[in-house]
């Protein structure tokens, strides 16, 4: 090996596996972790360990959670009749930041895309169906992107629930066709939520 140290190469290698980080940035980050105070570096390492050991998924909504039930599902003030279906944790974070949704969530864990090997079985769709049946949920809000994958998932959910009496709404105008929630600014997202139909 033509490097300074095998330990260093190992570190760079692991950092470069993080999303959006190439070999060059990984090397920079590795040097930083070695140059910074030992406390700083170990804090980072410990946070990773702590997150991985103590964070799991809420058994109801699949949000991140330290306990069996997440903060939202165990909050007595949330409206249990309404569920907002979203793609991932990050979208949940965006909706919570806006404080516009008073009900519960359901994190699907992706969108239907056969080309990427994501079918109905890969997503938490059965779990959603069971939840709605068990709790007699009265309204389901579909908060998925307006892309082919988002539309397909929304259609699949509507078809799946067609024999159940539940009001289904979809975040409407505001999010441009082909638009992704992540790139939508807060005002548009708020409008899309309020104008759902």
């Amino acid at each position, binding site marked *: 090996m033509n490097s300074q140290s095998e330990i260093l190469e190992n570190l760079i290698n692991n950092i470069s596996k993080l999303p959006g980080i190439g070999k060059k940035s990984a090397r920079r980050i590795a040097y930083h972790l070695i140059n910074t105070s030992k406390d700083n570096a170990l804090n980072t390492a410990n946070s990773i360990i702590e997150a991985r050991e103590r964070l799991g998924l809420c058994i109801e909504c699949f949000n991140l959670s330290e306990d069996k039930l997440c903060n939202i599902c165990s909050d007595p003030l949330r409206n249990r009749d309404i569920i907002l279906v979203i793609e991932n944790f990050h979208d949940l974070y965006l909706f919570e930041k806006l404080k516009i949704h008073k009900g519960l969530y359901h994190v699907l864990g992706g969108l239907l895309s*056969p*080309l990427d090997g994501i*079918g109905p079985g890969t997503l938490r769709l059965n779990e959603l169906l069971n939840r709605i049946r068990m709790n007699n949920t009265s309204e389901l809000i579909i908060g998925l992107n307006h892309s*082919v*994958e988002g539309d397909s998932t929304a259609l699949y959910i509507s*078809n799946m629930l067609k024999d159940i009496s539940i009001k289904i709404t979809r975040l409407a105008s505001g999010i441009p066709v082909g638009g992704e929630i992540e790139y939508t600014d807060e005002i548009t997202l708020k409008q899309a939520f309020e104008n759902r139909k």
Partner: protein
Amino acid sequence: MKLNKLILDNFRNYNDLDITFDKDVVCFTGLNGQGKTNLIEAISVLGLLNSFRTNNYDEMKKFGEEYFFISGEFTDKNDNRLSIKISYSDKKKKVTFQDKKILKFSDFWGNIPIVYLIPDESVITTGPPLERRKFVDKLLSMIDREYFSLLKNYSKIIKQKNKILFDLKKENSFQTEMIDVYNDQIVLYGSKLFEKRVEFLKGFEKFFKDILIFISDGLFGGSISYSSEMDQKSYSSDLREKLSVNKRTEVYRGLSIIGPHKDDLIFDINGNDLRKYGSKGQHKLFLVALKLSEIKYIKSITDEYPVFLLDDLYSEIDEKKSAKIAKILDEDIQTFITTSNSGIIKQFDQNNTKIFNVINGAVNLV
């Protein structure tokens, strides 16, 4: 739209070319293999960001070089200057328009309208339906943002559905939940595509009929009609019906076979199907008329004439017809022509024509 200045750096067989154009008809003559088509190709890349020859930018890089750079200065009908620069090195494309970086190519399309006619395109009239759909899809994508995004989504839907059908065929099973999801979207996007195509044809055919009659000296009357397995009076409901009826067939084939991605255009000449009965000369003339109509149509929608690129066209067209074509191109349409026979340029207004001789990557005024 007019191209005033073209710079090529390591593009194909050009080292560093810097050439200005001040006439509406520009002709590149010279022997074969000297670089005439390469010039036309460069101009088309400036407007479309794609080459009609290849999808691979590496091929446009001069043999043995690390990068290429091309730039063009255009003026539109209001005399605004438009500058586009494209560089390619390390497998990376960098495009700037008006000195701003273009991140998504589709955001740029339509800014510099280009229509080209190259010998390969004879497949539009002779080839399979796919070629005629491509002709319409390419044209509409350039001038109608909504069409472009409909088409993009539609193609994605078909790809996703094909994967489902392929998997079902492989597993020898028949489940329709996922097929239904995509069929619903095919109806939604597919009927909009159909409507837009038909609306386009209505406007386009008017230009086409006049032009074909004119360039054929009144010999040939032509028409273009939309052809589909669906009933065109109730396209959307018929599409829904056929998708539903054919689910098993599609699974059996492992392929999506119902929808506007199977539609076609029928070209008629003097009442007969050109593809079945047309002579070689009729095909050629039909194609020329299609392209000239494309120019007129773009002008009618965007109020700007595209730059017209003609590669090797005149090899099979007689002088009388060339004169007619020249007449249509007379009004303010900048036209670049390559030919190994500079005689035909006589048909164009000599005061508005410039002829360049191309020898092995060097371009000189004749």
